[in-house]
């Protein structure tokens, strides 16, 4: 079987979702870990050091290109799969199976993905874009990201309120996307043993809850002054 044949088959397309999904999960672990430095309560010193390691160093900067490639592949493949899958049933049922057979979020991966995408556009334009446009192709010229976070979340204005709302909803969408996606990705990779499936299911739920609450707490912590 050629690579082309494999990656254009329905199972192969799902494998791409699974590889890129797991890759994005690994990114989330790093991202959540580094951002948690805001809670060091040191006026952002530790956080900015972590941010400088990522932004002022060629290795993470090159890996970042891979991250974007993986993200784009995941989004494009995901949306294409969703749209072809939808076309496989032209006449709809009068009565839907609904939640009797599956969880709502497992059937809503596309919609949840689009919500995450909308959040990501705002999120990247809040921090990544200003930072990289200040840096250009160099390693220097980073902005003070801690101050930027304060400015984005700690102020009191309608824009801040909407921003925080989008962030919290984005985290919720990510949580549900991962509540299904985490274990699904391993099934797609072929993990069929019941004992591993149960383990991955449990790890997936804990991961989606912990990581997404941690992310949602970041803007809230700034806004309500839980960090100094």
């Amino acid at each position, binding site marked *: 079987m050629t690579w082309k044949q494999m990656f254009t088959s*329905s199972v192969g397309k799902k494998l791409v979702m699974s590889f890129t999904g797991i890759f994005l999960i690994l990114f989330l672990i790093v991202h959540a870990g580094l951002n948690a430095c805001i809670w060091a309560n040191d006026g952002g010193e530790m956080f900015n050091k972590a941010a400088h390691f990522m932004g002022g160093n060629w290795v993470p900067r090159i890996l970042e290109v891979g991250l974007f490639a993986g993200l784009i592949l995941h989004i494009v493949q995901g949306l294409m799969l969703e749209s072809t899958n939808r076309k496989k049933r032209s006449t709809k*049922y009068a009565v839907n199976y609904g939640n009797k057979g599956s969880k709502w979020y497992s059937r809503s991966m596309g919609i949840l993905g689009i919500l995450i995408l909308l959040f990501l556009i705002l999120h990247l334009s809040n921090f990544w874009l200003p930072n990289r446009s200040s840096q250009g192709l160099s390693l220097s010229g980073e902005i003070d990201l801690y101050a930027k976070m304060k400015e984005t979340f700690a102020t009191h204005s309608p824009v801040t309120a909407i921003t925080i709302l989008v962030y919290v909803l984005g985290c919720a969408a990510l949580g549900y996307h991962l509540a299904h996606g985490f274990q699904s990705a*391993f*099934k797609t990779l*072929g993990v069929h043993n019941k004992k591993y499936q149960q383990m991955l299911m449990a790890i997936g739920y804990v991961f989606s809850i912990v990581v997404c609450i941690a992310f949602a707490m970041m803007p809230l912590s700034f806004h309500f002054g839980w960090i100094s």
Partner: protein
Amino acid sequence: MEHYTMNLTLKVWRQKNAKSEGHLETYQVSDISSEMSFLEMFDVLNEQLIRDGKEPIAFDHDCREGICGMCSMYINGKPHGPWQANTTCQLHMRAFKDGDTIVVEPWRANAFPVVKDLVVDRTAFDRIIQAGGYVSVNTGNAVDGNAIPIEKDKADAAFAAAMCIGCGACVAACKNSSAMLFLSAKVSHLALLPQGAPERKSRVVNMVAQMDKEGFGACTNTGACEAACPKEISLSNIARLNQEYLTASLVSEK
């Protein structure tokens, strides 16, 4: 369980042929016994329609004992009706009560086009099985039943997968109209056994290719298929199919 009779309102999908538009038609049936099967209730309705000079409702059925997989009704939003691990023919009217309204639709999937009323064309499944090809077995004298030792666990898992009756409820239940539960049952029951080993790799590759050609959707592991399957085929067979496919593609020469 106590016997009772009931009057019901039925909303049944009527469609003249593959080309025509269909619609839900409302019928009343009375004095239905709680001990009838769902298909017997349809027989009563059809006799009533014939008496009234109307076209009876076409529906598929054969064994009426839950083993052939022909009966295919989507009842009140669930393939094969409200009971778990059950076929339409084994659904009994005691699942309903007097005054209920029951909506009956055909399996919905572009790969299963409606032939007439509740009858859909499921030959796509036959073509997927054919694409799997043959299984090499030695001919000649009958071999001793215990000549090839098989671990009990494996034999049980293969048998559980071989329970699939090809009814198509998994496709009907899936939001993507995916045939992965059916295919995974067919691939698993041979992949688990030494008898299926010689053609193991080509089988999975060819069957997946045929499934895609027939126009079924891709699996997103929602689990709706497993919940609707009358034979309780496990979702983990799909993961096994994915593994079979991944291995077959990684080790292939070209």
